[in-house]
């Protein structure tokens, strides 16, 4: 997890294009200035970052389904629940599935688990557009490589 760059996903564990599901892993850092303020003497991962981790997980799934031709952007968060605290150093397993693929938008459901136990879940809406510039596309390609995006799923 690179909190400073808002890149929360470490590794793609599974990407199933037929089922339209994804599972990723993300380790919460042991130390970060965020935990100095949230909260002093009782560090926990902020709920908004758990939501963001589910959004980024869903984002990789959508990028794959759209063959990296369009970029999804988070548009709405529904039914987000923080079911248990997430502490520094814990390893998150995050999975997402497609709820609906509309015209120019998509909805996903995602869950954060630690050791198999559900800590957070949400229903998310994304709008998606053609990549606005080559720089962003290049950046997403680089991150995809870093987190082990299975490029073979993009083959015809």
């Amino acid at each position, binding site marked *: 997890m690179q909190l400073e760059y808002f890149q929360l996903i470490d590794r793609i564990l599974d990407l199933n294009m037929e089922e339209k599901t994804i599972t990723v892993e993300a380790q919460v850092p042991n130390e970060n200035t965020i935990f100095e303020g949230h909260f002093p003497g009782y560090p926990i991962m902020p709920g908004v970052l758990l939501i963001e981790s589910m959004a980024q997980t869903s984002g990789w799934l959508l990028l794959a389904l759209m063959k990296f031709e369009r970029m999804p952007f988070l548009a*709405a968060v529904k039914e987000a629940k923080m079911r248990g605290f997430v502490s520094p150093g814990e390893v998150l397993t995050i999975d997402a599935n497609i709820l609906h693929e509309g015209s120019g*938008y998509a909805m996903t459901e995602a869950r954060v688990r630690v050791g198999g136990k559900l800590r957070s879940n949400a229903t998310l*809406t994304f709008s998606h557009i053609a990549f606005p510039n080559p720089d962003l596309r290049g950046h997403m390609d680089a991150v995809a490589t870093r987190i082990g995006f299975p490029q073979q799923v993009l083959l015809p």
Partner: protein
Amino acid sequence: MGQLGRDARSLCHSGIYLQYIKGLVMSSTFDQVATIIAETCDIPRDTITPESHAIDDLGIDSLDFLDIAFAIDKAFGIKLPLEKWTQEVNDGKATTEQYFVLKNLCARIDELVAAKNAGA
């Protein structure tokens, strides 16, 4: 009455019957859409009419319309081509009234449902 008269009367009746059925289907589509809009956007149901413009009259913005599109897609088993419509409006090839006045929206929905059924 001869055979011709009976056929004509029968045709006439079936024409009226078809119109009646069409009316039922259309009002049903409108009722469903109006209920979806009322529930999704917390708009009083009785303020929503077939002449209402979703954007100009009901004040629904593009993000709220995604929720409506989602509910319509699910309810009717279709995919509202929002991107295509938006592009046509942006290019000046269509007006928002053609797609977002509810009676017109319902007509588009009926067309999409008919196209889906024809392809099934």
